[in-house]
C-alpha cells in the first residue's frame, strides 16, 4: 500500500549514502541532488494518498489528490536548485586553487 512512499524514502537514503561514501566532491553534490529529488517525490507520493485526480471539482472525479504537499514542496525545489548551483559554482573556485576534487586532498591542501 505504501510501496511508492517506501521507494522514495529508499531513494533519499541512497542519496545520503552517496554523500557519505563518495570521496569525489562533485559526486557528493550530485548525491545531495538525488537526495532532494527523493524527498520531493516523497511529498508527491503523500499527496496522492487521498486520491489521484487533480484537486479541481469535476463531475467525473471520485477522489482528489491533497493539494498542500505539492504546493509547499515547490519551495523546496527552488531551494534545492539554488543550493546546487551555488555549491557547484564555488566548487569550481576550490578546484581552481587546489586542482583536485578528492575531498580529503582538498582538506590537506587548504589547511597546510
Amino acid at each position: 500500500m505504501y510501496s511508492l512512499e517506501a521507494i522514495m524514502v529508499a531513494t533519499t537514503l541512497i542519496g545520503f549514502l552517496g554523500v557519505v561514501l563518495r570521496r569525489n566532491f562533485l559526486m557528493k553534490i550530485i548525491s545531495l541532488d538525488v537526495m532532494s529529488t527523493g524527498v520531493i517525490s516523497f511529498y508527491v507520493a503523500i499527496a496522492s494518498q487521498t486520491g489521484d485526480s487533480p484537486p479541481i471539482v469535476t463531475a467525473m472525479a471520485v477522489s482528489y489528490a491533497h493539494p498542500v504537499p505539492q504546493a509547499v514542496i515547490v519551495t523546496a525545489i527552488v531551494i534545492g536548485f539554488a543550493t546546487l548551483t551555488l555549491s557547484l559554482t564555488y566548487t569550481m573556485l576550490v578546484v581552481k586553487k587546489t586542482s583536485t576534487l578528492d575531498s580529503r586532498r582538498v582538506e590537506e591542501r587548504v589547511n597546510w
Partner: protein
Amino acid sequence: MVRIYVLFNLALIVSSMLAFLNKFKKSIPLAAGFVNLVVANVIYWSQLSGEAVLWNSFGVKLILDNISRDFLLMNSIVFLASTIVAMKKEKPSVFFFLLALFLPSCNLMFLSCDMFNIYVLLELTTLVVFLLASFGGKTNQVWSALKYMVLGTAGMNLYLLGVGMIFARSRTFELPTLVDIIPAVLVISGLLVKAGVFLFSMWLPDLHSSVESELSALLSGVGIKTAVYAILRFSPSLGKTVDVVVLFGVVSAIAGVVFALNERNYKRILAYHTLSQVGFVLSAPAVGSFYALAHGVFKSWLFLNAEELPVKDSKKLSREKLPFLVWLAVVLPCLTICGLPFTIGATAKHMVFSQLTSWQKIFMYGAAVGTVISFSKFLFLRPTFEMTRPVNPLVHILLGFYCFFPSLVLSVKRAEIFKSLIVFGVGALIYFILKNRMKPLPRRLENLEDSLTIYVLLIAVCFLVVIVRG
C-alpha cells in the same frame, strides 16, 4: 500585532534592494539595524505577544511569545554591532545587500511556528550565510562554507523527510503534539547539524574562525541560533525524544570546552566555546531562549574584539600589554561568559542550572569551571594606563549595556553570587596548574569525510537512545 511586524520585515527586505545603489550601500544596513533595535526593544520591554494563523491553511502559523522576544532582541543587538564594524571596510554593494537581507530573514525565522515555515526560513538564512561567508574568496573560507553547505543540506533533507512523515499522518504542518520515533529522530538529527552541537556540526570551528570577525560575530551570535530556535520550538512536542537533545547538549558543553582549553588561536577558541555554549542552551530547552540571548550578546562582543587585539595567539598575547580601555573591553565579555555576578551571563547560567537534574548538574558545573579555565588565558592580561581609544567604541558601549541589563531589572540572590565566585576560584586555580601543559588537539573530527561518517553513526545513536528511553 504579528501582522504589523511581518509587514515591517517585508519593508526591510524591500529596502535591502536599495543597497545596490552605490550611494546608499552603507547607510541601508545601518539604518535598518537602528530601526530594528528600537522595534525589538519596544517588543521586548512591553512584552507584546500575538499570533497569526493563515486562514484554512493546514497549520501555517506565526507566533510572537517569550521565546521569540528573546531571539528577536538578540538578533537586533548582534546585527547592529556587527554592521557598525562592517561599515569601516570597503566592500562591493552586493555584500551590503546580503547583510541587509540577513536581518529580516532571521527576524521572520524567529516568528515562525510551523514545520514548513521553519524549513524555508532555515534554508534562506543558510543561503545568505553561505554567500556572506564565502564572500572573501579565500580558499579556506570557500571550503569551510562548502562543508557547511553539504552537511547542512543533507541534514535539512532528512528533516524534510521527517516532516513529510508527520504530515502524512496528521495532515497538517502545525507543530505536532506527539511524534513517532522515526520522524522525531529524522527531524532532530537534521536540526542538530545546523545548531552547532559538538560531533554533529564540526564545520563550525573552521567556518567561524576563517571568516572576518564581524561575520563570525553574526554567524556565531545569530546564524546557528536559527536552528537552536527550531529545536526549542519542537522540544515540547517531542515527548521522550527530547532526551536526545539534552544528552547531546551536555556532551557538547563538555567536549567543546575541552577542545577550547587546548587551543591557542583566539578565534578558534571562541568557535569551540560556541559549541559548548549551545550545549548549555540545549541542556535546558525550557529556559534556553534567555541563554541564547545572553550567548548572542557576549559571543558577538568577544568575536568583535578580535579587531582590537594586536596578536591572535594566546601565548604571544599574554606577553603583550593592552591600553586600559581596550583591556576593559577584552576582559568584560570574558568575565560575562564565565558567569560574573550581575552580568547577563550569570543570570542565564542560574536559570539553566535551576532546570537541570542532579546528574546533569555535575557535568554542567564541570563545563562552567572549564569555561573559566579556558578564558583565564585572557582574564590575566595586563593593562597599561594609557588612554588610547578602542577602534570601535560605539560597539563596546552597545554590547556593554546589554551585558549588564539584567542587573537593572532582576535582583540577585546572595547564594548565586557565592556559587559563581566558587566556580571562578576553582577555574583560576586549575588554570595555573595546567597552564603550560595544553597543546592544540588534532583536528581530525573537522574533516568533511570524517564528520559525515560520524553523522551516520550519530543518527544510529539517536535511534538507540530513543528506543531505550521509550
